[in-house]
């Protein structure tokens, strides 16, 4: 059997690692980088450019250069209206309402765009290993829902990769860290990446990594911090020049680059210069944006974002029945944790500084490679017990959500509940399966529906149906309903759909993995 590679498919950067002699090794890309920008551009002649080459032409080709596609994957266009206003490329709604990207008149799915990045990572690994690679462990934010996970799997398929496991990013980081720190302990993994925030609490016990709880925010990451800087600069510019730079895609792209650079520099320096000559043309000639930015200014502007880090951490601790004092080690993962204000916030929450001896950009890919070793049998002494991050339940009368598998249940798991009919002579029940935290079922995501018919006609409440949820270790849910007494049964496996059909995936695959 061929090798299984580990890929961290990040919002901003991606990284690939492989297990070599039971050690995860990060593989350099063809340009010599250990991480690759998660970007793809379509040139005028239709050629697709990925990674650093794509990033270089971001300024000259902004409408056909896509970054941060992870924020779109598995989402509806209507959910992203706010984000769409601030992107230089155009988001359109596909027939089923999914958010796609319009590139020079051709709508393209986030799965296809991600597939280009995954295909690049696959080639990087193949060059290094000198053999074809067809299997991968791919990481996603722990708080991703079913649709987002399935969309990521489909992106892998388009890229010619069988995704053997979708692994949660904070869990992956813990695996990589714990491989060499296997003493029994409790870890908090604080993962603030380019687009998402995850917090996971784990216990390591005799080589078994058990996730106790996980929480997160799928819309909080480095991009949001960049946007704060962009707004700060653009608002000032608007006030003094009466011109909104955000309306011009080339200016916005330059502003975004400068904002990101300034943010990064302010992690080590106290002040930095933003220097954007000829950013726009005014009535009196060219306009320039030049100013000094201080760390304090950045931190004040970012305070609302920093505040949003707190609640998920406290909820994760409570769900794990832990206090900050029970946590032995705090792992800081994701490029954003280089920001001193983020480190301070993590320290304030957990009462101890974050671990310094992990590389926040690479540890997730290394963990994915470790997991490939668990699957392949190379690493016999380590194994992972993960949890499901979302409530799974059934819609009951009054549009209420009756939770069958609560969030943070260790998987695989099986749970049952008995339901009763609500009407006299009711001969069938429709079972609607929902995922999410809201008590009102319709506000959660509906992930499946089926009908159990031919029930014995009886007064209401007399006929009972036992509904059983089985979730496997990969998070795939199977739901069975049995009429108590007669044994009449119906089963459905919830095939999360990413919105692409098998045919679409296959034909995209022909194009991407050519």
């Amino acid at each position, binding site marked *: 059997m061929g090798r*299984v590679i580990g890929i961290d498919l990040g919002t901003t950067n991606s990284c690939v690692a492989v297990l070599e002699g039971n050690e995860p090794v990060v593989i350099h890309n063809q340009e010599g980088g250990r991480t690759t920008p998660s970007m793809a551009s379509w040139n005028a002649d239709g050629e697709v450019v990925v990674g650093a080459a794509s990033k270089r032409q971001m300024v000259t080709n902004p409408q056909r250069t896509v970054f941060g596609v992870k924020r779109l994957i598995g989402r509806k266009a209507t959910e992203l209206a706010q984000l769409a206003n601030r992107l230089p490329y155009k988001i359109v709604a596909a027939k089923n309402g999914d958010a796609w990207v319009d590139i020079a008149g051709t709508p393209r799915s986030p799965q296809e765009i991600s597939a280009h990045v995954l295909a690049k990572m696959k080639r990087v690994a193949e060059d290094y290993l000198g053999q074809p690679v067809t299997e991968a462990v791919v990481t996603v934010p722990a708080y991703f829902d079913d649709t987002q996970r399935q969309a990521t799997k489909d992106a892998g398929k388009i890229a010619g990769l069988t995704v053997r496991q979708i692994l949660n990013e904070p869990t992956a980081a813990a695996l990589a860290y714990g491989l060499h720190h296997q003493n029994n302990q409790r870890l908090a993994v604080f993962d603030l990446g380019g687009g998402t925030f995850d917090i996971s609490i784990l216990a390591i016990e005799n080589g078994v990594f058990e996730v106790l709880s996980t929480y997160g925010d799928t819309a909080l990451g480095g991009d949001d911090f960049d946007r704060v800087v962009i707004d700060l600069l653009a608002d000032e510019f608007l006030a003094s020049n009466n011109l909104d730079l955000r309306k011009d895609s080339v200016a916005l792209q330059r502003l975004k680059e400068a904002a990101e650079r300034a943010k990064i520099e302010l992690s080590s320096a106290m002040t930095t210069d933003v220097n954007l000559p000829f950013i726009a043309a005014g009535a009196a000639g060219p306009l320039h944006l030049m100013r000094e930015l201080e760390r304090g200014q950045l931190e004040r502007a970012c305070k609302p974002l920093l505040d949003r880090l707190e609640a998920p951490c406290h909820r994760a601790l409570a769900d794990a*029945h832990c206090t900050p004092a029970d946590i032995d080690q705090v792992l800081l993962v994701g490029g954003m944790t280089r920001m001193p204000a983020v480190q301070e916030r993590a320290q304030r929450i957990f009462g101890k500084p974050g671990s310094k001896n992990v590389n926040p950009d690479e540890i997730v890919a290394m963990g994915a490679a470790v997991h490939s070793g668990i699957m392949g049998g190379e690493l016999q002494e380590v194994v992972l*017990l993960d949890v499901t991050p979302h409530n799974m339940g059934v819609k009951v*009368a009054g549009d209420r959500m009756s939770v069958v598998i609560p969030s943070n249940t260790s998987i*695989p798991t099986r749970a049952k*509940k008995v339901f009763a009919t*609500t009407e006299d002579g*009711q001969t069938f029940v429709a079972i609607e399966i929902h995922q999410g935290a809201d008590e009102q079922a319709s506000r959660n995501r509906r992930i499946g529906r089926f009908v159990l018919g031919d029930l014995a006609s009886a007064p209401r409440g007399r006929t009972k149906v036992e509904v059983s949820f089985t979730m496997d270790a990969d998070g795939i849910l199977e739901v069975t309903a049995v009429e108590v007494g007669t044994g009449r049964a119906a089963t459905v496996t919830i095939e999360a759909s990413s919105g692409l059909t098998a045919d679409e995936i296959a034909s995209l695959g022909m194009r991407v993995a050519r």
Partner: protein
Amino acid sequence: MAGADEARARATLVEMQSRISLGPHAALGIGEGASPEQVRAAFLTLTKTFHPARFGRMSPDVQRLSNEVFLGIKGAHETLLKMLGVPSRASATGSGSFARSTSPPPERTTQRMPALARPVTPPFGVKVGGVPRQGTPPQPDSGRVTATMPPVSQQPQPTVDERLELKRALDLMSARSWSAARQAMTSLAARVPTSKHYRALLCYTRGREAQAAGKGEEAVMELQRALQFDPELGQAKQALAELLRKR
């Protein structure tokens, strides 16, 4: 090679499944008086072998089987900890299981019925419910785990001398009462799961039982497994040789 690995994995899983069917102690391979620490340690050791991720590159039916087996191991662990009065961990709590009214078919008028409280009784090893979340009052009827223990005859009886039991099993083998011998060996192997000799004899009796039932292939597989556990098991060598010669 992949096929051979998979056949071995399947056999290991099937064997574990039969252990699970003997009750939580047999499932975890521990004695009746095991402490919570021993229960936990046994669970962690089995997790390393039987977690579905270990079978993640195999065919879908092996993956499915591995999920079932691991659910059984988890169930045994939770049942035993509960019997020992150890509160389950946050991650291991299931839902409460008060019955609720199902939503009526959409085309009918919605009429809410009072919720019915009814404990759910899953088969052994399946976890339903557990310790209520913090802040919620205990719900005596919710989430009851029904540990359907196997019949007493299959339970290891600490009072019975192990050697006597083995002698009885060997006598049954001499009498070619393969089913009875297999049952006796199953109970012995469950009582002393560390004994490779017992496991070898268990596989041997299973093999002979299969042979008697005319299931040649299954017999060969079981006898080969017997020899994996104990390469010096003369009866198994002889039986296997005869079987292979006949084919």
